[in-house]
């Protein structure tokens, strides 16, 4: 056991998954989540899959409390699926331990390498948002270590305001220490998947809408480089957990062990390459409806099969942009975003589109009823930033917002315009953390916290 007079941890570079920005920090990885001694500000961090500055220290040399070693299961009820765990437990562990027993996370983002604490702090959503909403809907209780050092229990019916501020609160209301959530029953680890090529954005959005009624999981993939009448062409994917009869004799394969061993050269991402890449992807899917049974990791976590895939974007890193715009605006805002991207010649490996169901009561929760679009952009300095500010302008014009778990660029005034309940959230934060003990690169950038 390290002695209590242990020196602060050494400096190490701390960055989000997009590797921009990178800030040196002092990272503690305790097996028991606790506040470091003194009054130094700190930022909570899980597995580092937030893309931008959400889990990056507020200033160089700042304290980071990484939760990944605080990962014990406190209890599990096999009759109801109620799971009580420490905040550092990852969805990967939950899947590994509980899928063989017939349980699945109620909501999962596009990576399994995310802690339960981060799922709460970002109020993550998944391919089932149109039906089930976001992660916070399945949380019964959060144990929060607040700025004054107290352990506070909050949930939908107790300390409700603190709960609503913590779900989606980006770790800025306190250190999430434990979570009680409810897993979902599944019959098999397999997914019945249907994919179909969609000739245009209108068709794709209609396909998502029609599928929503019958399919728990839906998502679309867009070819960002298609022009003219093909704008927004893509692939519709919809899935559901397979029954034992459907799964039949499928056997699990060993998980892939591919790894990107070094930073890829930047020419790899030039527009011609991307055009080719996107074209091939679209061509292989054609226009016909295909149905097959796939493993859950292929359906939910295709990128997890390649460790460190973020290195494909080269040494300068990349930005992920994800926004949501209300349904009322139809396909116009999405078209406007795609046109602005095409005009910039800024291609993307992945442009993912999804229809969201009703939003949550949590003050800063991202999803709202409408359409969400997510894409990766290699970071090329000022031009990339100004492109994203333009995209934000389109989003604000239509009453939408960006997802903080992905964001590294948005300006504070833009953010305030996106978040109608920001004031309410700030009031709760003022009450629980008036001195801003919990601070991050993101909170300095967007909320005016001192660095």
């Amino acid at each position: 056991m390290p002695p209590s007079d242990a020196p602060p941890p050494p400096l190490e570079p701390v960055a989000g998954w997009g590797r921009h920005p990178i800030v040196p920090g002092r990272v503690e990885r305790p097996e028991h989540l606790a506040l470091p001694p003194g009054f130094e500000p700190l930022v909570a961090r899980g597995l580092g899959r937030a893309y931008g500055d959400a889990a990056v220290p507020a200033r160089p040399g700042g304290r980071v409390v990484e939760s990944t070693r605080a990962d014990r299961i406190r209890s599990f009820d096999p009759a109801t699926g109620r799971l009580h765990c420490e905040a550092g437990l990852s969805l990967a562990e939950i899947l590994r331990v509980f899928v063989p027993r017939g349980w699945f996370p109620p909501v999962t983002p596009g990576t399994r390498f995310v802690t339960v604490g981060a799922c709460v702090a970002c109020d993550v959503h998944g391919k089932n948002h149109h039906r089930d909403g976001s992660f916070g809907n399945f949380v019964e209780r959060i144990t929060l270590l607040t700025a004054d050092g107290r352990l506070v229990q909050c949930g939908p019916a107790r300390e409700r305001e603190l709960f609503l501020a913590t779900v989606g609160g980006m770790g800025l209301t306190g250190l999430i220490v434990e979570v009680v959530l409810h897993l979902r029953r599944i019959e098999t680890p397999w997914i019945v998947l249907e994919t179909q090529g969609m000739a245009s954005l209108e068709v794709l959005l209609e396909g998502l809408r029609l599928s929503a009624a019958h399919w728990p999981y839906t998502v679309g993939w867009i070819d960002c480089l298609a022009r003219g009448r093909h704008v927004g062409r893509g692939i519709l994917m919809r899935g559901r957990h397979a029954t034992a009869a459907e799964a039949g004799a499928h056997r699990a394969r060993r998980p892939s062990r591919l790894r990107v061993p070094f930073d890829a050269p930047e020419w790899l991402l030039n527009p011609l390459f991307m055009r080719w890449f996107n074209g091939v992807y679209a061509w292989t899917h054609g226009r016909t409806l295909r149905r097959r049974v796939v493993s859950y990791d292929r359906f939910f976590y295709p990128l997890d099969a390649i460790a460190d895939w973020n290195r494909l974007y080269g040494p300068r890193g990349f930005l992920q942009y994800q926004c949501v715009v209300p349904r009322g605006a139809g396909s116009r805002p999405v078209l406007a975003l795609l046109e602005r991207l095409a005009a910039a010649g800024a291609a993307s490996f992945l442009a993912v589109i999804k229809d969201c169901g009703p939003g949550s009561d949590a003050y800063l929760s991202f999803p709202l009823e409408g359409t969400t679009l997510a894409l990766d952009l290699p970071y090329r300095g000022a031009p990339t930033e100004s492109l994203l500010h333009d995209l934000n302008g389109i989003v604000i014009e239509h009453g939408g917002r960006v997802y903080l778990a992905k964001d590294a660029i948005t300006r504070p005034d833009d953010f305030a315009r996106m978040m109608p309940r920001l004031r309410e959230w700030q009031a709760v934060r003022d009450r629980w953390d008036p001195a801003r003990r919990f601070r991050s690169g993101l909170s300095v950038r967007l909320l005016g916290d001192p660095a």
Partner: protein
Amino acid sequence: MKVAFVGATRGMGRALARGLAERGDALFLLGRDPGEMDLSARDLESRGAAGPVSHAPLDLARPEGFAEALAAADRALARMDALVVTGGAFASQNDLAQDPARLAALLHANFTGTALLCQQAAERLAAAGGGLVCAFSSVAGDRARRSNYLYGASKAGLSAFLDGLDLAYRERGVPVLCVKPGFVRTGMTAGMPVPPFAGEPDAVARDVIAAMDARRHVVYAPSVWRWIMLIIRALPRAVLRRVRF
């Protein structure tokens, strides 16, 4: 297996205990902190340990309590058939060199305490018809280095002891496994510069479980450390005097 486990609450011990629980072994925890053991017991039960996981106090620095602790494990497990010891003391060379009391405590727990416990357990298991003893030593015990020879000495002694224990008890049905982890990223090594070939606790746990099942007497984890130590052991003394590691 029905395993009495010293050190299951933290680091590599936590990972190894989970690996055993997840394949349905029964576990009984021994250690100093009942609150910590409670938390780990619930974790291990949730992950599939056979039956409820309970615990009893054991302090590697207090050998007078060993007999009672082993008897408690035997009762709770309805005859244990394995003892795993991952627990031990660790401190930096600097702290140990400056603080004789701390050095004495570390040598006592890592060598004297662990050896007495394993000796008693081996005898107990042999008398009851057989079983397995597995204890965590360290690559630091394979060759003294100026940067950690004090901790290394405690582990060198333990490695020699376990080697002999295996010779003495294997034919009585109690093979002994000496685990020699290289650098593994855990709370114990937090803040230390991370060398090449550093391992993760889960990977170490998989290797150790495979070695337990194969009834091997020594395992390096990650396995590459076997070859690294082969080279380090072969280094001429003149070289070792010059290098700073």
